[in-house]
């Protein structure tokens, strides 16, 4: 059964408690109507439930989340998927700053643009690899301090003058990979990354993840794959290893 919650005037603490209590009783699907800035939706939930958010969720959506799927039929605010461990977040719009901070696993699909410091300090361990795909463009410091994970920027529907990512792209990066559909200006790159051409394995991986992305948002995979991608990798696994005296 689907549990519908009308979020009009509902304080986040009460709303999230309703969800947590219902999950404990075995509820698996929720639809939040008229969401209007309620924070922490899906926070710390370990069960594989589904939450559909109609309206704009507040900050720290899916923070510490560990299993659920969240579909947002609007924009997401700042701090979505903060330190998320597992599950999926699908946003049919833009997402704000610090998207996927310290993300440890799971998938994040954003239809349009993302803010500053996207994917900062994402991590990975063996098969647990977080993925962020944004259909639009990203702000400054995208992929900062990345220690793992996959970050894909598509730059769809952007103006001619709009760069696909802001300044300091991949600055401090020491693990993981960023794929970008299009070119980036050398001067926007962090000192710790280099640009490479994706190989066959990369293209296979891109196709796999992008076909899921296209399914969610109704984009044409062939159309997306027509344009060449570039791949950013950290130059060194120890970017700051030589700053110190012995």
């Amino acid at each position: 059964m689907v549990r519908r919650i009308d979020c009009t005037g509902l304080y986040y603490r009460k709303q999230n408690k309703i969800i947590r209590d219902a999950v404990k009783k075995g509820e698996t699907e929720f639809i939040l109507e008229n969401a209007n800035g309620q924070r922490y939706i899906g926070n710390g939930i370990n069960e594989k439930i589904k939450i559909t958010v109609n309206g704009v969720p507040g900050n720290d959506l899916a923070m510490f989340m560990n299993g659920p799927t969240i579909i947002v039929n609007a924009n997401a605010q700042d701090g979505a998927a903060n330190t998320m461990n597992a599950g999926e977040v699908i946003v049919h719009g833009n997402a704000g700053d610090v998207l996927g901070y310290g993300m440890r696993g799971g998938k994040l699909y954003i239809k349009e643009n993302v803010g500053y410091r996207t994917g900062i300090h994402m991590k990975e361990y063996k098969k647990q690899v977080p993925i962020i795909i944004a259909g639009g463009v990203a702000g400054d410091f995208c992929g900062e301090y990345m220690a793992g994970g996959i970050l894909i920027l598509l730059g769809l529907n952007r103006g001619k003058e709009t760069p696909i990512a802001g300044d300091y792209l991949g600055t401090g990066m020491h693990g993981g990979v960023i794929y970008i559909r299009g070119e980036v200006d050398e001067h926007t790159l962090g000192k710790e990354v280099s640009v490479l051409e994706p190989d066959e394995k990369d293209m296979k991986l891109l196709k796999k993840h992008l076909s899921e992305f296209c399914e969610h948002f109704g984009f044409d995979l062939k159309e997306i794959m027509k344009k060449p991608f570039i791949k950013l990798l950290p130059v060194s696994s120890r970017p700051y290893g030589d700053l110190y005296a012995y």
Partner: protein
Amino acid sequence: MTSELPPEFIVKVDHDRCRRCKRCVMSCSFGGMQFTDKVVPEHRNCVACQRCATFCPESAIAITRNELAYKENANWSPETRQNILKQAETGGMLLAGMGNPREYQIIWDHLVIDACQVTNPSIDPLREPMELRTYLGRKPEHLEFSVDANGELELATELAPQVKLDVPIIFAAMSYGAVSLNTHRSLAMAAQKSGSLMNTGEGGLHTDLYPYSENIIVQVASGRFGVHSEYLNTCAMVEIKIGQGAKPGIGGHLPGEKVGEEISKTRMIPVGTDALSPAPHHDIYSIEDLSQLIYAIKEATDYTKPVSVKISAVHNVAAIASGIVRAGADIVTIDGFRGGTGATPMVIRDHVGIPIELALAAVDQRLRDEGIRNNASLICAGGLRSSGDVAKAIALGADATIIGTAALVAIGCRICQKCYTGNCAWGIATQKPELVRRLDPQVGAMRLSNLLTAWSLELKEVLGSLGVNSIESLRGSRERLRGVGLDEQTLKLLGIKPAGIGQ
């Protein structure tokens, strides 16, 4: 370039006593001992960690300073000149471990405690009950009661979650990565045995320690290493680390040498990479943002765990602490400039931050003045060395105290300050399996537990001499302290009178 640095220490081996067992050669993890036909010290590599000397069965080893390597000069100390040479050779920042070792005034040593004589009786703690129990967490402004159907009185006020301590001394945050798993095991077992707490630091919690959850503080720091919903719920409380006394305002940097397979798994970063904790949390740029993280953690723990916020003692600490309490923290932890670290630039460790005594007094007073002192417990850290320091800290306003360096000394640390090399010969600040093995967690736990027992006995003696029977009666009781040799402004900041003045 060949190094022109003279050796800092000279290792003297008494070859008459030496029975050539080579134990010292095996002990030294810094390459300071060779064996040809006899033991030959490599002075240049010696860090004076005393491992070889301690375990020499014949006591044939003595480590001394290389006295005249630098000619005496009151302005140009050997260390100053050594540092210049190192930097001239490498062009690098100087790294340092442990706490600030410089000769700043130690205010604890200028505070003295009161005692009862004649007019009010002291209490004998050996025969009378003496209470050290402490509860950490937000306290209500007042209590409300209701009467149930049977006419029984019951508490109507909903209490915020509290953490019970049997001793007002807990172990400092030291990450798995900076210190070994056997160090974490020792701390966790001792905390459980003594009714205290250990703190994971920012490197996550090894699954082996999950059974000790009731005696563990889990930390959430800017690198978010090892933070997930299970971690947040495997603890007595959660701590947001904003700052550390040894390195206020800068991030963490665990050298790649210390990131092996297990650390890589716990932190989720590649083997051999440096574990980088950004200087700020990138989701906290204001008190409002801090509040957002505090409540994110409360949501993830269903409001069952107190949330602490740890900051380093800096100039504006009182106003910051006030903001932290208003942001919803249940506990504020303040770490003074003597607090330790596994690695930090020396310039930061030695020159940034303020003494914990002043910070503690300022924060406690500010929270009282604003009428919000009950909203949060106050924990102080940063170079506390004895039960005397603990008693003075509690009289200055701390609810509980933290020991880090003292705890490590208890399990073998000789404060050689080379934690950042990963070569710790005592199995503490290292990840090398052959060195980690040297620390037996059972023995470590026993030594730590002994230390807490000993300090508890001493605290009870202090309370007894003060004529009170509970630590609660000493808490924030600055009237029981006096200053010796402190200037007027310092006394005013500490809120105490100079010795010699009565009530």
